[in-house]
């Protein structure tokens, strides 16, 4: 299983029923990296 694909953002329009895809913008990629550093809940019992 891989972590990423070239299509980072999948957009679905309920009016047209169409999917489109695109890579992250630089801003979105930076945001995602910040999110990666956030703590996960619940943490392991002994962590």
């Amino acid at each position: 299983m891989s972590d990423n694909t070239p299509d980072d953002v999948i957009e679905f329009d309920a009016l047209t029923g169409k999917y489109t895809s695109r890579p992250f913008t630089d801003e979105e990629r930076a945001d995602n990296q910040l999110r990666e550093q956030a703590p996960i809940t619940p943490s392991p019992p002994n962590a």
Partner: protein
Amino acid sequence: MTYPWVSGDVLNAADLNTLGLVRISQTTLSGVTNSISNVFSSTYDNYRIVAHGLTNASGTTRAVDIRFRTSSDDTSANYFWSMYGYYGATPFNSGAGGDTSAELLSLSGTNGGGFSIDVHGPNVATATTYGGQSITYQGNVSSYVTRMIGGGIGTATQYTGFSIIGVTDNLGGTVTVYGYTNP
């Protein structure tokens, strides 16, 4: 035609418009960020979002968040969220205010799970809030984790959609949006 309907009844538009819950869209998740547009409108005030078969691609436990959107995601630091839950007999809780997204759950791998939230007035010019629950598998605690979840965004923006956001991982699963019929 008076409810309850019986076999042989012919239902007209007025009858069908009395149904309480109407399916608006169904979306298959596949990216890290999954944007679902043009589902909230003035037709309904309140909505239910149901997701099942949730997976992430790596198997590493990571959070899944929601953002509300118009033509793009609202990334302002106006989100608030909280959760409490159990895994096995162990309780936990978490939350934040002034956040740039609202956390719904965490999950790992392909063991599945889902969430269900009611969204209150996303297309109404008041704060958008939600409440519900999630049950997903987390490898970091080797357990399914049950959460009561609530939150929202304290803006008066009239949102037309939302995004389900994984962290680094591509998500899998199915998200269905229903509208609660207004009286």
